[in-house]
């Protein structure tokens, strides 16, 4: 679960990390009300999860209530422009009105989990305000990393070492170890997967302030923090996750694509391999779907309806490796599911293995479905049928 900037900054505040004074506004009117009588220049920022707000014109300066209202209207008028990962763009549902900092320097710092090292890693660069991958290409020597031993946790020397190694401006040095301490505390306390401050600003009057906030929470740890449930409601919906949840499968278990071959398999690895098999056979999948264990009638029906009703599938390729479940039981489940569903029917190609697999295939044949013996055969058959459809 990725947090919006204003949510991340709320966590920063709780953890004692300095952020600009700000107000979260739901519409232009609220921006104007907040800026009524406020002195100086302010920044109005779209609250969205997509990157590239600046380039998209979604961050604007404003002085006074009237200008505040008009830039807010401009920002909210259009959604964030689409990109490859978000082909629909992202609507702007709220704004952060923030004190404009007089910034002297911009640095970068982040904490995330390094998979290979199996440790938290703190990343610091003296270049902030731009994409860290760009910095890594252009100024690799400016990036310093520290892998934290979880049995020790964070200790101030790590911040000192990083400040020296990344050659942070001396203006940062005094406060930096304490800022990282607070950031590590936040990272650890809330089960955070990534926390990033970019830029970490050094102001003209010598303060060190988190000018932006990016926080990714671990979905698997959210049960420990019921207080974040209200924040989730403010986030843009991931429609695939919502549909998966409605169908009773895990939110990571369903993902839609533009193709015509609907797929479903038991197990994430097998479901990925099923997608690959369809591609190998020259087709394009309509979805990734892991039905999980226990492929009983109700579950199969839910998954079938999910795919038929929400994707462009012209055929549905079911790939069940019957490790523990019996082939005939799975076949009966599928037949029952198809008898019960009120959704429109598309051809089914079913690959089924396991104990009593022949009996299973007989049941399927009698129900006029297409049983196959291998994943490759099933993929070829499904692709062939999708072309015909």
């Amino acid at each position, binding site marked *: 679960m990725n947090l919006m900037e204003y949510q991340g900054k709320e966590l920063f505040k709780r953890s004692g990390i300095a952020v600009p004074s700000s107000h979260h506004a739901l519409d232009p009117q609220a921006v104007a009300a907040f800026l009524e009588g406020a002195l100086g220049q302010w920044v109005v920022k779209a609250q969205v999860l997509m990157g590239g707000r600046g380039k998209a014109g979604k961050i604007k300066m404003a002085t006074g209530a009237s200008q505040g209202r008009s830039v807010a209207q401009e920002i909210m008028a259009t959604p964030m422009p689409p990109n490859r990962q978000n082909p629909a763009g992202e609507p702007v549902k709220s704004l952060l009105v923030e004190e404009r900092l007089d910034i002297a320097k911009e640095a970068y710092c982040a904490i995330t989990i390094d*998979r290979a090292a199996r440790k938290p890693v703190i990343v610091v660069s003296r270049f902030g305000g731009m994409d860290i991958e760009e910095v890594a290409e252009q100024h690799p020597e400016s990036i310093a990393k520290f892998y934290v031993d979880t049995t020790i946790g964070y200790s101030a020397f790590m911040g000192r070492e990083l400040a020296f190694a990344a050659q942070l401006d001396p203006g940062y040095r005094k406060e930096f170890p304490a800022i990282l301490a607070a950031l590590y505390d936040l990272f650890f306390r809330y089960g955070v997967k990534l926390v990033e401050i970019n830029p970490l600003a050094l102001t003209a009057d010598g303060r060190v302030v988190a000018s932006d906030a990016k926080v990714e929470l671990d979905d698997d740890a959210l049960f420990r923090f019921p207080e974040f449930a209200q924040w989730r409601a403010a986030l843009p919906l991931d429609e695939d996750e919502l549909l998966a949840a409605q169908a009773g499968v895990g939110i990571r*278990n369903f993902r839609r694509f533009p193709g015509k071959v609907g797929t479903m398999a038991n197990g994430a690895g097998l479901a990925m*391999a099923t997608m690959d098999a369809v591609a190998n056979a020259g087709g394009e999948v309509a979805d990734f779907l892991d039905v999980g264990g226990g492929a009983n009638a109700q579950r199969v029906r839910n998954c079938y309806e999910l795919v038929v009703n929400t994707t462009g599938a012209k055929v549905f390729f079911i790939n069940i490796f019957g490790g523990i479940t019996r082939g005939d039981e799975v076949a009966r489940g599928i037949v029952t599911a198809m008898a019960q569903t009120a959704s429109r029917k598309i051809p089914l190609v079913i690959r089924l293995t396991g104990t009593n697999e022949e009996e299973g295939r007989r049941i399927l044949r009698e129900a006029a479905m297409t049983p196959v013996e291998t*994943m490759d055969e099933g993929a070829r058959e499904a692709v062939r049928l999708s072309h015909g459809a």
Partner: protein
Amino acid sequence: MSIFLDKNSKIIVQGITGAEGSYHTDRMYKYGTNLVGGVTPGKGGQRTPQGLAVFDTVREAVAATGATHTCIFVPPPFAADALYEAYDAGITFAVCITEGVPVHDTLKVVGATPGMRIIGPNCPGLASPGKALVGIMPGHVFKEGGIGVISRSGTLTYEIVDLLTRAGLGQSTCIGVGGDPIIGTTFVECLREFKNDPQTQAIVICGEIGGSDEEEAAAFVAEHLPELPVVAFIGGRNAPPGKSLGHAGAIISGSFGTPQSKIAAFEAAGIPVAQRPSEIPALLAQRLAVRA
């Protein structure tokens, strides 16, 4: 031989009286695994249908049975506690089946339990065919032999093992290392064990998108096992970046974890990458023939 697990490994089940735990205990028992007891707090003194003693704590179970291995079936909020309890009681090998363990829990456990080998979490377990099976794998697909199998997934592993068995290629030990971003035992750590296992004559690496376990495994093979026949497969070649597919760990972030990088690493190490699982047995047989 075989790695991690053999006929004499004494194994307990944590969460043995739960729905999942009791179901898979029965399957493991029927496979012939040397189960010596189980743990469910508050049910100490009971016996399972198989006649296994249930204890209140792992400490008591270890004291009474001499267990060294554990298989954990507990809900995600309690997985870290179960692993700490096993560690504290002297268990040296723990398989954590639980899916959905918070990543910080795993991170902390992995750092604080030196000397205990953890497989998983979010894994199907492992099997040394003909000797023992720990976890939720289906016993009937296995056949004892010389192929070591390491994999990040469950059913896909059974699929591949099944293909191997049908092709007459038996297995030494098959390990599902787990689908989470942080796991207790990586491919490289398995390979290090296979290196010293005389039974293992060849290895299948079944990777997927996300992380860099495959790249590290390729480098390890190139350096330490250049003579051993190894074949790889990568699941999720057609996955889009930024979205995890099923497994929390199966995610392409920026330029990390792409199938291209993994395939390139295997090919640079001289390891053929199967386009589809069904190609694996033939590729393996070919490599074994060249060697013989």
